[in-house]
């Protein structure tokens, strides 16, 4: 989308929020109970924890294969700004173009099917017509003909899709991250990691290699079948609702981590959840990996009593290596102090969802 996109908040019944993920940080969730809270018990350790990515409970982030929520337009504006500032955030090695088309098809089909009020896809052989009403995009193009789109297929669809995505080529018994976009990432560099294999790009993660997590995950993913996507969670913490916590700009956003007090903790500290889903692509046999970022402030999380109790216990008991790797070791004690006031010690029920 272009940077001169005019956002009209009254359109679409006022569904899409006019908000920012930088400078003024006006992002918030209208309904925190929609947030995909990632802890199904009171403690946390790395695990493969992959499960089928099936449409789930109504009114949650799991309702559809791709969740288009109230933050869609604001996130796409933020992505366009990041790409304008740093085009290296979107990369595709030359042999990944077909996987880009596969991804475009996957996303257009899913959005037109699940959100017909906002998206439509009309096909006549390879002559396709795509309408994206929230972003004001209407495009006729020839499928598999790059010259008919304003961007290469991967970048074209990524500028209309929430979440960071990577495309993995499969060869030599492993997966190679040979394309990717990252504008809402938890401190990893797509520019540095593109071209790496599965074990290489996970190399900096502590503890998990020794537990065999990546060996098992790779074995599982190499068997991933078209039409049977899987998902898992990852999470970290972010000060202010900053989507783009990139290593490239760490020297600019890093100082925000030193601004926390007990008074502003509730508004400033955000649980950052990645709902990760993986799809085998039909023509290229590549695997598309969607890393969808959700942010929720502490003060909004603790409005759900079960989540308040559990978040306190998870953060309090997390191994130090993980708190360091996830980048919040300096603030952990203060976070635990603030959260402890929302934990009455009562037992919690299993599973992610709120009790009522």
């Amino acid at each position: 989308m272009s940077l001169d996109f005019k956002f009209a908040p009254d359109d679409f019944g006022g569904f899409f929020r006019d908000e920012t993920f930088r400078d003024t940080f006006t992002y918030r969730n209208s309904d925190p109970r929609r947030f995909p809270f990632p802890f199904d018990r009171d403690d946390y350790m790395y695990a493969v924890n992959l499960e089928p990515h099936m449409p789930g409970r109504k009114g949650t982030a799991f309702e559809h294969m791709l969740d288009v929520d109230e933050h869609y337009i604001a996130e796409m504006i933020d992505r366009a700004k990041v790409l304008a500032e740093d085009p290296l955030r979107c990369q595709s090695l030359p042999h990944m173009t077909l996987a880009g088309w596969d991804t475009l098809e996957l996303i257009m089909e899913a959005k037109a099917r699940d959100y017909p009020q906002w998206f439509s896809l009309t096909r006549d052989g390879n002559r396709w017509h795509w309408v994206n009403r929230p972003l004001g995009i209407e495009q006729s193009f020839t499928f598999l003909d790059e010259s008919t789109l304003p961007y290469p297929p991967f970048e074209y669809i990524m500028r209309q899709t929430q979440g960071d995505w990577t495309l993995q080529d499969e060869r030599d018994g492993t997966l190679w991250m040979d394309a990717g976009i990252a504008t809402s990432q938890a401190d990893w560099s797509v520019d540095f990691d593109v071209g790496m294999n599965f074990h290489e790009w996970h190399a900096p993660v502590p503890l998990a290699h020794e537990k065999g997590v990546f060996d098992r995950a790779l074995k599982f993913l190499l068997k991933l079948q078209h039409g049977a996507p899987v998902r898992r969670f990852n999470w970290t913490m972010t000060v202010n609702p900053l989507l783009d916590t990139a290593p490239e700009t760490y020297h600019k956003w890093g100082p925000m981590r030193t601004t926390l007090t007990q008074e502003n903790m509730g508004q400033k500290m955000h649980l950052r959840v990645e709902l990760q889903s993986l799809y085998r692509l039909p023509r290229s046999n590549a695997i598309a990996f969607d890393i969808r970022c959700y942010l929720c402030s502490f003060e909004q999380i603790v409005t759900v009593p079960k989540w308040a109790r559990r978040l306190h216990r998870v953060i309090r008991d997390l191994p130090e290596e993980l708190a360091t790797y996830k980048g919040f070791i300096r603030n952990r004690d203060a976070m635990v102090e603030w959260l402890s006031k929302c934990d009455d010690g009562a037992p919690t029920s299993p599973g992610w969802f709120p009790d009522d």
Partner: protein
Amino acid sequence: MKVDLTPVNAPSIRSRPVYATLEPRPGKLHVIVADDEGAAAVVEMLGKTNDRSGMLAASHVMYCPGPTGTDLSAQLEVLGAAQFFRAPTLPALLPRLVRVLADAHMGTQFYLAGTEGLIGQAEREIMATGFPFASIQKEHRGSTLRRVQCVHCKGITENVATDPFKCSHCGLNLFVRDHYSRRIAAFMGVCIDAEDPGQVPESVVRFQ
């Protein structure tokens, strides 16, 4: 934030390249690229073949002195390879490698020996032509100085000895992560005082 520098003898992480010892292999063409003390690895490898003259007759040897000035080119020049080339520096060597790759066919064997900077950059050129990873052998010898890319400005600083160090392009204070990119042929440098500007730990010499 407290940043722990990776100890030099820490267990390797999975993106850290691992190197073996060069072994002679049957091939139609042997492309041998070395710098620094890598020359000795090439001499030792040739000592292991049963058909030394046959292998040398199909060898193209390229060499440049190491980053600390070590120049063992004489050891390679006297071998009598079909082609021998001494470049003054690595940047002066790479264009010749690229030209040789343009004519190389399947069945070519690649032998890279010396510093990680040489191995990484030569490997990147070879892989860009589509040769299988398995046709490239690598042996690390000599200097452990590192080639580091600043993740912030993307500039590469060659021959990094200390950790942290100042980026030679943007001037930020960077610590050296073990994380290595084969595509960029460099380790990653990350700002060490991002959260507490000006609080930079004293530099220690980690790579020589």
